[in-house]
């Protein structure tokens, strides 16, 4: 009824865009990514390459988990690595003391991380933005320092000699096999996280990110829904912790310093907050960067720092930002399908 003039400026734009954008937004890009991950070991199969690729995948999982909290729900979390710590320590301690294959610790890890998510989330979620940031940072530090001081966590040297995924004679810890296990687990979890964003819950998260008051007016119990974001984030982080423990066979407080949380956050923002595909790219980029610049040794962080600045200035929304577009009308989509089918 009101101004009609807006339409012409958008007409036609919604569906096309340049070919690159279209390609990037195609839903097949996810499969392309998975394809790359699966083929990579066939191209470079040194242990070194496998090791950093596995590390990168675990990092991808972390970023995917943090993306739920920060990207979808808009809660700035500067202590995310704490969830990975909880997962890794739980897995490590149980696996080591009961001589269990790591896989069997997963249920316990889930329970512990959900608990951690609740404990960390409950008091903090009433806070807004930057107060939340410092509190999560504080929690991250509390968990790390506690792990550093307790004997059950092995104190500062942590836990080492953690059994891997191997069950009986089935050797699942060979770098290649372990890489593939990681690739599959991570892909599934990334897919799940991406799907969550397009659901009722995901929508509620994004509403909270955009305007908490308005979200409440929609009947969204913001407190519960935020807590859920924390819990999902925590579970993803905890599972990353299990993979991490298996991969390094050692867990020590040094791996859970604030800088790690900052790096995961960087992956999320650099890749494009809220867009899972972007976040995956960001995570791969951030985790491989120090390795790519390895030969620059002491200068690598200078380059890394400069690169971060340059990339962000060129792509302030992230390398591959969320594109808020959807088909205009169901009928249009259906029509297009019918036309296609008719052509075929």
């Amino acid at each position: 009824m009101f101004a009609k003039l807006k339409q012409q400026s958008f007409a036609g734009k919604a569906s096309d865009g340049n070919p690159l954008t279209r390609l990037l937004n195609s839903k097949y890009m996810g499969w392309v990514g998975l394809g790359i991950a699966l083929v990579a070991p066939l191209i470079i199969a040194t242990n070194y390459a496998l090791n950093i690729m596995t590390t990168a995948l675990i990092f991808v999982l972390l970023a995917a988990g943090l993306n739920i909290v920060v990207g979808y729900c808009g809660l700035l979390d500067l202590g995310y690595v704490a969830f990975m710590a909880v997962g890794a320590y739980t897995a490590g301690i149980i696996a080591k003391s009961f001589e269990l294959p790591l896989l069997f610790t997963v249920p316990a890890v889930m329970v512990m991380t959900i608990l951690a998510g609740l404990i960390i989330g409950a008091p903090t979620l009433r806070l807004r933005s930057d107060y939340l940031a410092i509190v999560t940072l504080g929690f991250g530090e509390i968990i790390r320092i506690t792990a550093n001081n307790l004997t059950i966590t092995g104190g500062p040297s942590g836990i080492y000699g953690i059994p891997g995924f191997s069950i009986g004679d089935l050797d699942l810890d060979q770098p290649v096999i372990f890489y593939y296990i990681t690739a599959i687990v991570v892909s599934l979890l990334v897919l799940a996280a991406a799907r969550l964003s397009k659901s009722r819950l995901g929508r509620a998260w994004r509403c909270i990110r955009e305007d908490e008051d308005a979200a409440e007016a929609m009947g969204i119990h913001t407190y519960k829904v935020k807590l859920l974001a924390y819990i999902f984030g925590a579970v993803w982080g905890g599972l990353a912790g299990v993979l991490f423990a298996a991969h390094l066979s050692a867990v020590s407080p040094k791996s859970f310093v604030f800088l790690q949380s900052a790096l995961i956050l960087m992956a999320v923002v650099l890749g494009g907050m809220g867009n899972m595909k972007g976040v995956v790219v960001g995570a791969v980029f951030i985790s491989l960067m120090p390795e790519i610049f390895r030969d620059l040794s002491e200068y690598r962080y200078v380059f890394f720092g400069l690169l971060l600045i340059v990339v962000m200035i060129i792509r302030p929304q992230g390398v591959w930002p969320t594109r808020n577009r959807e088909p205009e009308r169901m009928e249009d989509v259906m029509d297009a399908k019918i036309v296609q089918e008719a052509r075929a």
Partner: protein
Amino acid sequence: MLQLIWDGLFVGSFYALIALGYSMVYGIIKLLNFAHGDLYMLGAFIGFTTLTAMGGVTASMSIVALLITMMVSMLLTGGMGVFIERVAYRPLRNSPRLAVLITAVGASFTLEYSVAAIAGPNPRVFPIRLESDTLNFFGARITIAQLVLVGIAILLMVALNAYITRSSVGRAMRAIALDPKGALLMGINVNSVIARTFFIGSALAGAAGVMAGAYYGKIEFLMGFVIGLKAFTAAVIGGIGNIKGAMLGGMLLGLLEAFGSHFLGGEWRDVFTFSVLILFLSLKPTGILGERVTERV
């Protein structure tokens, strides 16, 4: 007891000085300037270089030399703060807030490892050291040097507070914080006010760097990291964006740490501090002096 309090306040005044810059920058552009702690480090290294360059003079008139050094360092770190804002933050002024957080981390890495590349990763030792007599104040040891440093810190803070709350530039800073576009329409040169904020905040960090170098003696390229986090914490405790809050927060954090490490042991100190912080924020979600932003619906 008195000793604990004094020690806490002394460390706290360093935190406060750095928290101020954090809070100012946050207050105006809502940026958690992760590079801020590194400006403190840079300030210390500039101080080191200046003193070394002055060579023999320093020995004879150490206080004067130190004051000159502090001025030089404040100017240069202030300038560096402005430069970083110009190249790494300003281009992102209309971008998502977290984007700038990332460039801030980038700036932090660049500063840290550039200094490491130029000055070497080894710690350096300040050419002069503030050593002085110890006073006994009801059983607490207080050195004159400490008194002088705390005095300088308080002076800087009071001056800054007056500047922000009284002057029209201070008001402009707050206006920009609330609505940059609205501020433009008031005829406020937003760029220059923001640059000025960065200059002041960074200069204070630079001053703190020189003071720390002269008092403790040791400086190294990562020295800004931990204290940067502390200052951030202090700023939040005080109510981020609030100048007086930053000062209070700094002092309070210093006290908490002193008491925490005394009664629970150094290994549990940060657990204690952060727990208190979390508890406190759960009760008062905007810090000591944070303004309750009444958002109208």
